[in-house]
C-alpha cells in the first residue's frame, strides 16, 4: 500500500534514508503462481509488530499463496518483500524464521511422527540455547495441550489439536511477526475462542500477526486492519471494524446479496486504492 498523504508530524521529522516510516513487513506488487497458473497478480500488503492484519477473500483469491510467497515457499515472478527495512525478496524460509518472521500453514503443519514435545523442540532450535528453555516454558504456559499431550505423536492428534501445536511451534521461535493460514479452521467453538484469545494475547506481547481467515466477521472484529483479495489482486483494504460494515465487502465476500463476484467479473479496485464507500 503506498503511504497515504503524510500528516504534519511526518513532515516535521528529519528525513533519514532508512526505514523510519517503514512497516516491519512491506510487500509490494507481488506476482507468483505454480507452474503455468498465475495466482498473485500484483498484491501489496504491510504489517507492523503491534498489528493484527486479516487477509480475506473468496476461495482461490490467492490468500494462502500470498503468505507462502512472502515466506519464500513460492517462486516469485515480480514484486518485493522488505523486512525491517531490508530487502528479503526470495530469501529462504529458514533464514526468515531466524530473522523473526514465521509461518503456520493451513495443513501439514506438524511433524506427524514426532511427539508434541519434540515438535515444540524443533521449533525452538532457531532460538539460542540459553533462551530456549524459557521460550519453551512460555509456550507451555500459553498452550496447556503441550503438557497434557507432551508424549503423544503429533500425527495422532485431531486436526484442531494439531493447529494448536503448530501455533506453539511457530511461537517458540520468538517471532516478531507470524503469518497464519486459517488459524481457526477446523476448531470447535471453544477452541476457536481459545485460539483467538491467544492471538490477542500474543499480539499484546508485541508479536504482529497476519492471518488468512474465512471466519471473516470474527477475524475482522479482532484485526486492526484487513485486506480483501480477489482474483490475485488487492480489492479492498481498511480498518477491521470499517470493513466489517463495508457494503462492498459484504457484496464481494460476505455474501450479503447471496452472491460473490466470480473471478471473471471482479469488482476489484486497482491495487492500493481505497474503496469509495457507498
Amino acid at each position: 500500500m503506498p503511504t497515504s498523504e503524510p500528516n504534519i508530524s511526518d513532515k516535521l521529522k528529519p528525513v533519514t534514508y532508512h526505514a523510519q516510516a517503514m512497516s516491519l513487513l512491506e510487500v509490494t506488487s507481488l506476482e507468483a503462481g505454480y507452474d503455468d497458473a498465475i495466482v498473485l497478480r500484483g498484491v501489496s500488503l504491510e504489517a507492523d509488530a503491534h498489528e493484527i492484519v486479516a487477509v480475506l477473500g473468496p476461495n482461490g483469491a490467492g490468500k494462502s499463496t500470498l503468505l507462502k510467497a512472502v515466506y519464500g515457499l513460492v517462486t516469485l515472478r515480480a514484486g518485493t518483500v522488505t523486512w525491517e527495512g531490508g530487502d528479503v525478496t526470495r530469501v529462504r524460509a529458514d533464514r526468515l524464521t531466524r530473522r523473526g518472521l514465521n509461518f503456520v500453514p493451513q495443513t501439514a503443519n506438524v511433524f506427524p511422527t514426532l511427539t508434541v514435545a519434540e515438535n515444540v523442540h524443533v521449533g525452538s532450535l532457531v532460538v539460542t540455547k540459553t533462551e530456549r528453555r524459557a521460550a519453551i516454558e512460555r509456550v507451555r504456559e500459553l498452550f496447556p495441550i503441550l503438557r497434557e499431550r507432551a508424549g503423544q505423536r503429533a500425527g495422532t492428534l485431531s486436526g484442531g489439536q494439531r493447529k494448536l501445536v503448530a501455533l506453539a511451534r511457530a511461537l517458540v521461535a520468538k517471532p516478531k511477526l507470524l503469518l497464519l493460514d486459517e488459524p481457526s479452521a477446523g476448531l470447535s467453538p471453544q477452541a476457536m475462542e481459545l485460539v483467538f484469545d491467544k492471538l490477542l494475547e500474543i499480539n499484546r506481547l508485541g508479536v504482529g500477526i497476519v492471518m488468512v481467515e474465512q471466519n471473516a466477521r470474527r477475524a475482522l472484529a479482532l484485526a486492526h486492519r484487513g485486506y480483501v483479495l480477489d482474483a490475485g489482486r488487492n480489492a479492498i483494504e481498511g480498518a477491521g471494524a470499517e470493513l466489517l460494515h463495508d457494503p462492498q465487502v459484504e457484496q464481494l465476500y460476505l455474501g450479503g446479496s447471496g452472491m460473490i463476484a466470480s473471478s471473471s467479473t471482479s469488482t476489484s479496485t486497482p491495487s492500493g486504492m481505497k474503496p469509495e464507500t457507498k
Partner: protein
Amino acid sequence: MSVALAVEEAVRAFGGVRALDGATLEVEPGSITGLIGPNGAGKSTLFNCVSGFLRPQSGRVLLDGRRIDRRSAHRIARAGLVRTFQTPRVLARMTVLENLLLAAPRHPGERLGRALAGRSREREARARAGELLELVQLDGHASALAGTLSGGQRKLLDLVRALMAEPRILLLDEPIAGVSPALRVELLAHILGLRERERITLLIAEHDLDFVMRACDRVIVMNDGRVIAQGTPEEVRRDAKVVDAYLGAKHQ
C-alpha cells in the same frame, strides 16, 4: 426398525490414545444429522471407521442393517456410503473435471427420468459435473489441473466429487471450514435441497454452530471417543454437558 447407519460400541485406539471408546449412535434415513464435539473427540476417527478407511478394533458398524465394519472402503462406497475429507485428497495431475468424472457411478442412472431422456451415461455425467462445478464456483477451473486449486477450492472439489457419486448416505467432514462466507450460505441451501429432492441421508461433522443449527434435524455430541448427548439442535444447545465440553461459556 428403520436406521440408515448404526455404530455400536466402536473402539479404535492409536497407541495409548482411545480415539473411539465405545461410540454408539444411529442415523435415521433421510435425516441431516450433525456431529459435533471438541477437537480430538473422535469425529474423524468415527468417519474413518464407518467409511472403511479404518477398522474399529471392536464394535460394529451397520449400513441399512448390514455389517460393514470388515468391508473395504471402495465396497462401502459402492454400497452408497460416501464421505469427504477434512483435508481432501484430489488427483493433482488430473483436471478438475476428470476428478469429477472418475467419481461418477458406474451403473446406469437409476433415476427413471434421466434414463427415459435417453442421454448417454457419459453425457449425463458431464452435465452433472458441470452443474456441480457451477454450484461451488469452480466451473471456470474445469480444465485446470486439480493440483493448482487452493486449499478451500480442493475442499469444494472433494465435496462435489462425493455428490457426483450419487450417494445414499453422505458423510461430510467439516464441509465449510476454509470456505468463504458467501459460499457457505449457498452450500447450506444446496445441502437442504439435496435432502429434499433426493432423500439423501447426511451425517455432517462441523464446528460452525450456526451452520449446524440451520442444517441439522438432529445433533450428536461426542467427547473423548463417546457420544455424550443427542437431540434436536435446540436441546443440545441447552445441554449443560455440551456447554461444558464443547461450546464454552460464551455460547450459553
